[in-house]
């Protein structure tokens, strides 16, 4: 009886919350369609020091606030070995403007991938935007930081701490980031069914 209760309880817990990747975990590989109609995999990036994976979308106001900052990040850090890969996990049935053609219109300088395979779930992304900083280690990419890009979504001029940049710079120096994870408000993901 006790076993049964325990089992049900475990089942309940696992069905309610899927585990989020933790800092130090191996980052799962993915293969998703980019806006240039090419497939992009995390393993394509093995020559880079790290990758900034950002689950984002078109419709969410918080994601919109960060569009320019994402572009600037890629511009600054791609050459330093940390390119940006943006992934849109939303189904356009839920949000029309998250559809593929609208992603193409963004014309980002970095890959903008459509996640119709539930990659967001493997990472434990719950919202847009949701950042996972990955660093290259001997046996693949590992998670170095999870959370927000900075501390002032609405007003870039009010930013005091650039959480993600602080983390990238620490990783580059082989140090532990000041913040291994931060919290941000975002739009809950409406995935493909």
């Amino acid at each position, binding site marked *: 009886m006790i076993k049964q209760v325990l089992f049900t309880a475990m089942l309940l817990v696992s069905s309610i919350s899927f585990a989020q990747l933790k800092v130090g975990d191996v980052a799962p590989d993915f293969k998703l369609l980019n806006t240039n109609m090419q497939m992009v995999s995390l393993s394509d990036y093995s020559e880079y020091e790290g990758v900034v994976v950002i689950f984002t979308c078109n419709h969410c106001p918080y994601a919109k606030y960060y569009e320019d900052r994402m572009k600037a990040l890629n511009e600054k850090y791609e050459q330093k070995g940390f390119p940006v890969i943006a992934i849109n996990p939303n189904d356009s049935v839920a949000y029309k403007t998250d559809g593929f053609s609208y992603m193409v219109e963004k014309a980002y300088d970095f890959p903008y991938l459509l996640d119709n395979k539930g990659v967001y779930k493997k990472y434990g992304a719950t919202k847009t935007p949701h950042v996972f900083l990955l660093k290259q280690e001997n046996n693949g990419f590992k998670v170095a930081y999870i959370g927000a890009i900075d501390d002032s979504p609405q007003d870039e001029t009010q930013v005091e701490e650039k959480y993600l940049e602080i983390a990238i710079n620490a990783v580059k120096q082989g140090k532990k980031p000041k913040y291994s994870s931060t919290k*941000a408000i975002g739009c*809950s993901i409406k995935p493909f069914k």
Partner: protein
Amino acid sequence: MKKFVLILVIIFGVNTLFLKAQQPSVVKADELVKRIESPSDTLYIVNFWATWCAPCVEELPVFESSIYKSDDTIIKILLVSLDFKQAYPSLDLFLSKHNITEDVLWLNEKNPNTWVDKIDKSWSGAIPATKLYYGSKQLFHEGQISIDQLQKMINNLK
């Protein structure tokens, strides 16, 4: 004198007719937490939402205290808006348009990293999100919620 009173009544009556929704009061996260965590026999249902969040707006009708059964416990619903600063002045219009009669508060915070954990450590920051407080007991739900789910959470709290 009678006439004067009558005029007063008319003016007041007309006023209340048009004053459907009040501009939500502004709170800081600490003030909110203090209010809902202070010991009382009220069961608080706190929903975090925003006018720009489609699933949040869709589930607003769920947050109507008269729907829920809780014996003699008072249920108090607080709708905490995470709308952007520039949207605050037009919140009252939205509320009257959607016939929102429960209490709405507007959270005046800049950096989510400083307050999201104060509401619930397990909250990733995605909205909608709902937290229940009753005495020293708390329950948290991230994502959309149904009337049935909310009633179950109320039952589990008591």
